[in-house]
């Protein structure tokens, strides 16, 4: 499984590097593709890291894109391009806190905590057994959203279409212009990636 994951990651990084090269070459379509793929995910990432401050998140994401584009020559494909953007976004969040004199007020996210897995597992318990079920639910919601956003390619979308929108494999195949077998395989890989990403938090 590890080999399959590594191979998938290598393939994605190859695609990301090609995308970065196209952007640096002035390809407007490539820029729009990247922006449309990353903006909603980075926005949610920033909102989570800034304690729900949407105005600040907009500023931070804008700064992230500007900084990332400026430094795009230095992207060597050590990680997925989205992961690279997230690191720049984290730095922009830190700058935001510094500028606003809130160095000590950084939001500590569940996914950064060592007991994240335990909290996730607790979700399976009946609500009445949980003393702060509402707060935990919100935390888990954010972790699941962050995980879906961090998944490569269209995995997050595919899982959302399947489990939130209730689309059949045939309908997903239609949306992605794929055969049914390819869509089924994509869904399986998406589920596996999601499970591995959640497990990787512990």
């Amino acid at each position, binding site marked *: 499984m590890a080999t399959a994951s590594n191979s998938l990651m290598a393939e994605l990084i190859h695609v990301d590097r090609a995308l970065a090269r196209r*952007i*640096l*070459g*002035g390809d*407007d379509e490539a*820029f729009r593709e990247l*922006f449309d793929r990353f*903006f*909603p995910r980075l*926005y*949610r990432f920033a909102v989570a890291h800034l304690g729900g401050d*949407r105005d600040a*998140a*907009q500023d931070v*994401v*804008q700064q992230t*894109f*500007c900084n990332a*584009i*400026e430094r*795009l020559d230095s992207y060597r494909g050590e990680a997925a391009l989205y992961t690279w953007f997230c690191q720049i976004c984290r730095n922009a969040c830190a700058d935001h806190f510094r500028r606003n004199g809130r160095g000590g007020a950084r939001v500590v996210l569940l996914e950064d905590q060592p007991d994240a897995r335990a909290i*996730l597992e607790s*979700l*399976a318990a009946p609500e009445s057994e949980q003393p702060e079920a509402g707060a935990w*639910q919100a935390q*888990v*919601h954010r972790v*699941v*959203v962050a995980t*879906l*956003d961090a998944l490569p390619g269209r995995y*997050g979308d595919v*899982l*959302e279409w*399947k*489990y*939130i929108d209730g689309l059949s494999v045939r309908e997903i195949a239609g949306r992605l212009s794929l055969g049914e077998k390819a869509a089924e395989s994509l869904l399986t890989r998406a*589920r596996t990636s*999601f*499970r591995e990403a*959640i497990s990787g938090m512990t």
Partner: protein
Amino acid sequence: MEREADIVESLIRNAGRRVEPPDDAYQAVFVAAHAAFREKTARRRERFWGLCAGAAAVLVIAVALVVQRTPPVATQSELARAERLVGGVETATGDLWRPLAATPVRLTAGIRIRTLADGRAAFTLAGGGSLRLTADTEVMFDAPGRLYVQRGTIYVDTQGRPASERIEVVTPAGTARDLGTQFELRLAGSALRLRVREGAVVIDRGGHSLTGQAGEEISIDDFGSVQRATIAPDDPAWQWAEAIAPMPDMDGQPASALIAWVARETGRRLRYESPLVEQRAASVILHGEVRHLAPIDALEAMLATTDLWVELDGDAMEVRARSQEPTSP
């Protein structure tokens, strides 16, 4: 495997759909990020050609100074040309703003322009048409036919552009696309106001399209509510744009060309006193130029040496010949 799918399904279902960011945030960040992208790629191109120039120079020396060759020079296509500048007008390619020099100035991709509280500016666009900025406005030229507006009010006249080269005005609150027209666009925060003087304009905002026809004013407030009103082509509200209209070169042109231009600039219906006067206007050739005057003033100045004159009558402009002018009692 089935249990694994159940757990994944349960977690995703419990979390619910991921929230989409607001459209205005998307637009605002897109404009800034795209500007950064354009600046970055423009700088890379310049550096590339600089390196080419260096390599060419080395090659020329190595080949023994026999033939003098000119190294490649970085050139960027001109997107617009500054024609009229009034009051404070500044330009920047990075973060440093400096006063825009005397006209005409060639403007290329990535160049930003802003007018100060007392500033106004007019540009001719490569490919035809003009762009005008009133006070406290900031724009960036991006590509042929594409312009970013960060704030303020602009006026676009696309006369003379081929149908295949429409103008696209991108703002944080929506994108306007012309359908052969004269229009004004005002951006205040995330509120947008479109006034269409001639032709039609389509506004795309958050996945929805609105079309404004000639004589229509469309206002979209911060919350996306749309209000429609009417505005006549000769409404005084257009006067700021008329006052700074970049005048085409009229030297050697028939008087009828200048008359038609002024009628269009002032939103008035054009009529001639008689077919004879119309023929006369087509045969009188103008010499010299009168730039930096408002259209009506320019027309009066140019016609002063002919026997033609104009009379403004409500929303019409009538051209008469002095020889046919009724004699005062």
